[in-house]
């Protein structure tokens, strides 16, 4: 873009962010394809893990109900949502930690690139992995249960999944900022993952939870994503009126991303001032 040309400030900024997104995506893809054994290992281990998670749940049902279509549907969408939560915490949130460990965090923060883009560069291969795993689980669950996985409203399902990823990015940015601040999260990611999965109704509706826990569930953003996804895919009733739940999910996607972005800027500035940016 020529200096002093006709481009507006907004379009220049958008172009810059787009370029940064492309560069981040390119890095993400290069890293993903550098380790083909990991891709192969993911493809083999995903169904094995699915069986390991599914069987303990099925043991609560009588054997004649194991082939139920509803269980298969719940399980399939639960696995998809699990990937989304993992992407948020392990993919985006922990990206800061992996940059710290590789010793590239300081170099990244010396650039004038958008901070949110820097920390979401793993998003490309996380998205690729999510798509691959979803397609794979779709076939696997159908083979396992012998029941078709049907989607009642395909377009709204895609819309909800896009919103889920937006929320995952926002949540991941906030979590990533926390890691930037505390340096070593230890096992926090693993603990948080189980807490979110348990309380957000990833595999089941939160209506089955004890009343006090339901209050916590209502405060978690993934609860509404899971609820909407099951509604659009399986026709289950929603927790809130449908239009309100859509509105809430959209608002959460915007608010979490804005909060995450501002938090990164604030923490980076503070760490630079106190000289703790490179301490870990």
């Amino acid at each position: 873009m020529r200096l002093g040309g006709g481009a507006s400030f907004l379009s220049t900024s958008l172009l810059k962010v787009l370029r940064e997104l492309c560069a981040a995506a390119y890095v993400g893809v290069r890293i993903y394809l550098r380790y083909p054994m990991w891709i192969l290992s993911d493809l083999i281990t995903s169904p094995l893990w699915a069986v390991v998670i599914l069987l303990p749940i099925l043991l609560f049902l009588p054997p004649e109900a194991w082939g139920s279509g509803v269980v298969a549907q719940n399980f399939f969408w639960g696995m998809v949502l699990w990937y989304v939560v993992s992407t948020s915490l392990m993919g985006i949130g922990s990206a800061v930690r992996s940059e710290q460990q590789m010793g590239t965090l300081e170099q990244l923060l010396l650039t004038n690139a958008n901070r949110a883009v820097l920390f979401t560069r793993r998003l490309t291969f996380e998205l690729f992995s999510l798509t691959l795993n979803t397609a794979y689980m779709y076939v696997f669950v159908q083979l396992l249960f012998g029941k078709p996985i049907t989607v009642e409203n395909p377009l709204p399902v895609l819309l909800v999944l896009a919103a889920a990823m937006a929320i995952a990015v926002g949540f991941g940015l906030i979590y990533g900022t926390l890691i930037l601040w505390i340096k070593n999260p230890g096992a926090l990611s693993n603990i948080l993952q189980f807490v979110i999965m348990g309380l957000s109704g990833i595999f089941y509706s939160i209506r089955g939870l004890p009343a006090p826990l339901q209050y916590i569930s209502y405060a978690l953003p993934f609860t509404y994503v899971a609820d909407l996804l099951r509604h659009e895919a399986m026709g289950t009733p929603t927790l809130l009126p449908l239009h309100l739940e859509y509105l809430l999910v959209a608002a959460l996607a915007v608010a979490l991303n804005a909060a995450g972005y501002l938090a990164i800027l604030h923490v980076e500035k503070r760490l630079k001032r106190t000289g703790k940016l490179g301490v870990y």
Partner: protein
Amino acid sequence: MERVRRLARAALGVYVKEMKIWLRYPTWIFAFIALPYMLSGLFNGIGYSIAGPRAVENFARNTGVSNPFLFYTLGTALLLATEVLLQDVAYSIRSEQLLGTFELHYLAPAPTWLIWILYLFPHSTIMVVVLLATTLPVLAFSGVLSSPIDFLYACSVLALGMLPLLGIALALAALVVRYKEPGAVVSLVQSVVILLSGYFYPLTVFPAWVSALSQVLPTTHVISILRSLLLAGEGVSPLDRRLLTLLALAVAYPVIGLYSYRRWESEARRRGELSKY
């Protein structure tokens, strides 16, 4: 005598170093203690949600155990303990490679395979703490801990079950020395072990050929014996078939593991690939 003293010094050095690293990140220890309860809670929560008030009755019918919380807590604790030991040597080597301290181990006055095995002791200490902190409260609360002798017997079975894992760990370590990046292969082996060991379900849910295949894994027998002792309250005779199989595996796996490690290490040395990573 001098050799023993040198080995003891090396063992102490490795122990102190690894324990310092563990204690530097205490949240991991708390996480290991909390995870079995959390995973068990998750399975139970989903189970109640989908099956309603008949969940426990169905569970008892499918597994022969009427306490699903205890069943899954014990299963997860054992899974964590065995998986940490299984991947430990491989990841310790990889971590030394990445830190640039791998070659220094060849200057130590002890064979490298022995040094890598020594890494298991500090990690085992943490795992014992985790296992006790996880299983004792839930066993005591459930009232299934009939006598301290039974508990000691269970601990001995667990210790015996760790010996074959040492062999598998050495074989995985050989892969790291030879092929460097272990993550994908270790993850694959772990997934197969977790699937076939039956930490979270009785193996009778699988077809007969899968159950037969699972008999080559030491963890399958450890879990089966511990369930008999702690969950079903059954005695396990020292001549029990599962115990004898475990004993045989405790001899066979370390021999195979050691052979693989020494062979692949010498191959890497011969090709000049030891320091390439």
